[in-house]
């Protein structure tokens, strides 16, 4: 019996299934894209100017929700990267180092303010180019971008307070390579602390989501930042490799998969380049019998379906204590039924489009692996658009610790579920992957939170909450989830020498 026709439940009753669809209908609520200007194609941003790529190549960028091409980006070759590094070096040795730390901070404040002014435009573009729901780009990504610049702006003239007994100095030119899941936010995580510490940057956005980075370049120009302090080069892996291997870059900051992170670390072997890596994860959420179950279910939904599960710290494994497993899973299924999957620009949408065809294929490959490993697959019965890349919210049950779907990062809206009896068992299972980025604990007992939290070998612990971010809050991994921290006072260390 489909719940859509079952009217015996009230939608707000605590013991009922959630059933919004049969009580009221959602009318489409599209965010207008008319305000956002997209050029036909974008050049590279080097030395304060938009310049054509040396080899004249451009690649198309697609809206993953519709399959339509929205613009083209320049493909930066070796000589373009070289030019960008030269511009960054010149700025570092010249104007950027000659202005006071206070003034440096004021540029960042200015950038923060301009992002707030143009927040709506950035949000719309982020959703069009990357497929994330407008509600998330509007309420999470873009506000956090502004907050990040605002936070690090204030550090520029206070750096010595963060490192007692040390005299911090900037590193020089930083090469930064960012992923497609939070394009503008990852740019902010990289550029804000780098600039606050007095460095200059060459940043490469992901090839499927470069639009907001180039819009940011326009903003940098408007803000009057000295030429060459921020350089943006677009392209795919080869462009990234040119940055990693460039001899005149002092530091590499990378966010992306553990596989690519290891390749980068290997390329840097034997060099004096510093690096920080923000890599993959396979976050476990431990739900105890004494947890506030409804809150936990909401938290799990946010942990795995936020941003289509394209989140390195996603809570992609649920470990639920046996006594409440049935109840939690039932409530989870009910809640999943109420998720709206569809047009990223619709303000009602909960889960948007999968970022690219490649990622769509990866997720489907893992669903197949899960099936072959014997998992019970449950998917929401929601409708999904005919065009574009969409995956229904999915649960994989009856899985075991050694299954690939439990060990490997899927990076999609797919949650594995395992049960446990004792806290020690839960901690062991949670820690039993090569990753160590984030974990969650759900219980009403404070002492248990601290005990379990300290047992988790991960850089972030969310207790009775999940997927929360803030510029003041350090973020980063243990083990194979990466090296270094971003955010907070601890994030400064990645961009300074002593």
């Amino acid at each position: 019996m489909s719940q859509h026709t079952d009217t015996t439940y009230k939608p707000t009753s605590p013991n009922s299934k959630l059933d919004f669809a049969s009580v009221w209908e959602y009318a489409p609520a599209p965010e207008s894209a008319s305000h956002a200007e997209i050029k036909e194609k974008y050049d590279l941003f080097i030395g304060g100017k938009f310049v054509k790529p040396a080899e004249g190549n451009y690649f198309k960028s697609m809206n993953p929700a519709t399959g339509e091409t929205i613009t083209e980006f320049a493909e930066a070759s070796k000589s373009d990267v070289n030019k960008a590094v030269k511009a960054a070096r010149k700025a570092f040795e010249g104007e950027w180092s000659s202005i006071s730390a206070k003034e440096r901070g004021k540029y960042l404040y200015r950038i923060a303010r301009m992002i707030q002014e143009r927040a709506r435009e950035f949000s719309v573009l982020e959703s069009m180019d990357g497929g994330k729901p407008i509600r998330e780009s509007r309420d999470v990504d873009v506000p956090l971008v502004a907050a990040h610049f605002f936070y690090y702006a204030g550090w520029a003239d206070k750096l010595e307070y963060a490192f007692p007994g040390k005299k911090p100095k900037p590193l020089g030119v930083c090469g930064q390579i960012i992923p497609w899941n939070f394009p503008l936010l990852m740019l902010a995580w990289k550029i804000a602390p780098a600039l606050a510490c007095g460095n200059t940057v060459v940043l490469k956005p992901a090839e499927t989501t470069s639009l907001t980075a180039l819009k940011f370049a326009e903003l940098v120009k408007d803000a009057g930042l000295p030429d060459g302090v921020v350089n943006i080069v677009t392209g795919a892996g080869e462009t990234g490799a040119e940055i990693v291997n460039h001899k005149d870059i002092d530091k590499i900051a990378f966010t992306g998969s553990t596989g690519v992170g290891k390749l980068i670390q290997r390329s840097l072997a034997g060099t004096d380049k510093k690096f920080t890596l923000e890599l993959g994860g396979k976050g476990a959420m431990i739900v105890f019998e004494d947890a506030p179950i409804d809150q936990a279910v909401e938290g799990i939904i946010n942990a795995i379906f936020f941003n289509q599960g394209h989140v390195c710290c996603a809570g992609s494994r649920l470990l639920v204590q046996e006594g409440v497993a049935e109840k939690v899973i039932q409530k989870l299924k009910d809640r999943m039924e109420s998720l709206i999957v569809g047009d990223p620009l619709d303000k009602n949408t909960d889960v948007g489009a999968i970022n690219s065809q490649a990622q769509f294929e990866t997720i489907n490959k893992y669903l197949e692996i899960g099936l072959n490993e014997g998992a019970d697959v449950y998917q929401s019965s929601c409708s999904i658009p005919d065009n574009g890349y969409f995956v229904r919210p999915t649960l994989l049950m009856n899985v075991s610790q050694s299954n690939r779907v439990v060990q490997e990062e899927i990076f999609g809206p797919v949650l594995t579920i395992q049960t446990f009896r004792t806290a020690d068992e839960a901690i062991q299972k949670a820690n039993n992957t090569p990753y160590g980025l984030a974990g969650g604990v759900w219980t009403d007992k404070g002492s248990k939170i601290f005990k379990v939290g300290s047992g988790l070998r991960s850089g972030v612990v969310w207790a009775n909450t999940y997927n929360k971010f803030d510029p003041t809050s350090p973020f980063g991994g243990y083990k194979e989830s990466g090296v270094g921290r971003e955010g907070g006072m601890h994030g400064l260390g990645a961009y300074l020498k002593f």
Partner: protein
Amino acid sequence: MSHLEVLKTYKMYIGGQFPRTESGRFYKIFDKEGDLLANACLGSRKDVREAVKSARGAFGGWSKRSAYNRGQILYRIAEMMESRRSEFEKELGNIGFTKKKAEAEINASIDRLVYYAGWTDKYQQVFGSVNPVASAHFNFSLLEPTGVVGLIAPEESPLLGLSSIVAAAIAGGNTCVVLASEQFPLPSIVFAEVLNTSDVPGGVVNIITGKREELVEHLAGHMDVNALSYTDKLPTEMVTKIDELATENIKRIHKNQIEDWYDEDAESPYFLTQFQETKTTWHPVGF
């Protein structure tokens, strides 16, 4: 009455025991006159693996000791070292230290242990943070030990350098596998005897003697070693090899070049915090 000296057998230190190398190999250690001092263990890959296993086994318990307790144990190492002065003087004398220099080396080593003993319950307050997030959450960052740490001891500072690097690693709750100075390994074994009588749980510090060239890569490539540090200037090929092997498990590599172990820059809380990971915890605030 004449007394034939009973020579000491120098073995390695693994899991709180003093085993010989499983390989049965040895190498000769000579004094400053070129006379044979001892046959030291020529440690092997398997010894490194055993040592890592012991270090991993000891990590859970050691990292959960209270900071106060770790401080007391480090202080206890200093006490024990003080009581074994004459033995260290003899060891250092054998390898060419004058009496005065040996005394200085021992004094500095004891002081360094006391220095890090004092940090155990303080670094968290200096380097941790409470983070004023904009949402209704309480958010704090604590430092936690990285795990099992590989230490390549300095070749030329067989006691002060060794005790400095070990103290910085274990003060923060890590356990370690040390490759002793290849040329002067004997003081490291006396140091192990000090550790063994200082309430340091077995496996927290493991000391392997042997050839750096042979053993470094086994340590750098071991999947259960979380970090590796060295203070000597190593040959470029070795550096590259270490970096490459480290990528297998994203091992943290710390190169701190230290030439003068007496220098005030040779002791720093940053040598302790380099073996720490920052963990940030969030909790909602509400009724």
